[in-house]
């Protein structure tokens, strides 16, 4: 038992290290890529791609891995299935736009014809954002469309609801009996979250926060897993989207600070240090309050996005070499597939780990906020 725990911790540590590495890379690249195109940034990120990327740019109109990867991990107004350019097949999703002057406009994204047409005065810019056709119009557009990420998230959430509520019903029906089928898979996760995440971090008050912790865990987990499915209804980069992780982090931030007791606030504003150190300590403590959820947000976002980029990068290799010579593409593909399979398995582990890490850290932060004075 202790061996399992130990190896678990070891794997965890490795992933923290890897994710930290990925983070710094991201930051460096963001500095470099600020004035250039975003594509360059991704190309720099993966050494193998970097050389091939120039190739892709020279023959414009040919395969551009950076653009392809960015298209895949970014949100979109339609759900691309297969094909390129005019032959591409995609599911058009509803666009919902709110502006002060026009109120709510609701129409299908197919009206934009992949950015070639405008509708009701709106059009898509290069990044796929909805803007005014009339460039002089500076009125703010609130785009609350059911985009690819929203739909993917809804599908995942619906699946989760069906599984979990079904489980709850069978538990109520077969009171006191052993669980069966998929419930056998989920129950250990629930018990794991309760006994190894909640209780060690929060203690006696765990029961109050269990629904939140479980919901956060399963939300992240199922979206991570769905993100690994290559085709509809998966493949969207939901948990690798900063908006999603931001909302999760804000929820944790609010939970922590709204439940913070006297002890928690005393720790921040009246710490047990000499008074003259307050000048240093109090700003650090206040920074820590904000930084904790901020790091939660970044970690999940960076890890999941990095995973998607790496897998897509391996696939890109086939087409990069294929562009040079068909034999090269064929030669590199077994290697590429092997690496992708390996990364896919790794990403399944990461899918669980990141959900676990997010939940664990949330539990620890909550635990720090509700902990009673023990001095």
């Amino acid at each position, binding site marked *: 038992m202790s061996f399992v725990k130990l190896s678990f911790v070891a794997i965890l540590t490795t992933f923290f290290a890897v994710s930290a590495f990925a983070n710094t890379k991201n930051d460096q690249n963001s500095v470099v890529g600020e004035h250039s195109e975003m594509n360059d940034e991704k190309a720099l990120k993966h050494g193998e791609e970097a050389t091939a990327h120039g190739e892709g740019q020279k023959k414009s109109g040919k395969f551009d891995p950076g653009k392809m990867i960015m298209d895949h991990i970014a949100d979109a107004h339609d759900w691309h299935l297969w094909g390129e350019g005019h032959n591409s097949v995609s599911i058009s999703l509803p666009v919902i736009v709110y502006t002060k002057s026009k109120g709510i406009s609701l129409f299908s994204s197919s009206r934009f014809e992949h950015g070639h047409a405008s509708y009701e005065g709106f059009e898509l810019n290069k990044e796929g954002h909805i803007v005014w056709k009339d460039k002089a119009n500076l009125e703010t557009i609130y785009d609350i469309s059911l985009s690819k990420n929203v739909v993917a998230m809804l599908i995942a959430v619906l699946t989760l609801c069906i599984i979990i509520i079904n489980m709850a019903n069978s538990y109520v029906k077969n009171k006191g009996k052993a669980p069966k089928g998929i419930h056998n898979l989920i129950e250990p996760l629930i018990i794991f979250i*309760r006994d190894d995440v909640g209780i060690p971090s929060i203690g006696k008050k765990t029961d109050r926060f269990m629904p939140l912790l479980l919901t956060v865990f399963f939300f992240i987990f199922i979206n991570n897993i769905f993100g690994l499915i290559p085709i509809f209804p998966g493949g969207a980069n939901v948990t690798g989207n900063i908006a999603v992780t931001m909302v999760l982090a804000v929820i944790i931030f609010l939970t922590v600070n709204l439940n913070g007791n006297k002890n928690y606030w005393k720790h921040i504003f009246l710490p047990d240090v000499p008074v003259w150190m307050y000048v240093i300590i109090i700003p650090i403590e206040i920074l820590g309050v904000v930084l904790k959820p901020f790091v939660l947000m970044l970690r999940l976002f960076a890890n999941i996005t990095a995973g998607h980029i790496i897998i897509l990068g391996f696939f890109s290799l086939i087409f990069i070499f294929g562009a040079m010579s068909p034999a090269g593409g064929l030669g590199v593909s077994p290697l590429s597939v092997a690496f992708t399979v390996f990364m896919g398995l790794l990403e399944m582990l990461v899918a669980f780990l990141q959900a676990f890490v997010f939940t664990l850290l949330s539990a620890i932060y909550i635990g720090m906020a509700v902990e009673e004075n023990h001095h």
Partner: protein
Amino acid sequence: MELVKPAIGLVFWMIVTFSVLLFILKKYAWKPILSSIKEREETIENALSQAERAKEDMARLQGENLALLAEARQERDLMLREARDIKEKIISDAKGMADEEAKKLIMRANDEINKQKFAAMEELKKEVASFSVQIAEKLVSVKLEDNAAQQALIANHLSDLTKNPSAKA
């Protein structure tokens, strides 16, 4: 930076979705699941502790049974010993009494025998005296009838008397 700019639409839908998800799962899933898991765990724990207690009870009962058995055996031994003692005592008592009785009987018999002996001797004495008298009478009458013989007898007595006067007296 496109990637790290949160889109307002996604933020909006995420807040809505997550709140609804949290509400629904909390009400319809986590509460019943967590409570039934807890209930099941308690049931299992109770069953285990009950089994443990039953085992202890069994061991205790077995010990008690053994103790009872040993006690019973001891009691039986005691009873047997007592019975043997009583038997021996009865036998010895009976023997003593019988001896005494026999002695008494023998003594009484001896007394009787002695008494009878004395009585018989008395009788015999009396008988002998009467016989002597009768013989004497007969002798006397016979001699008186037969003169000649009487004469001879008297002569005999007389001769004895003369020879030994002291013996005649």
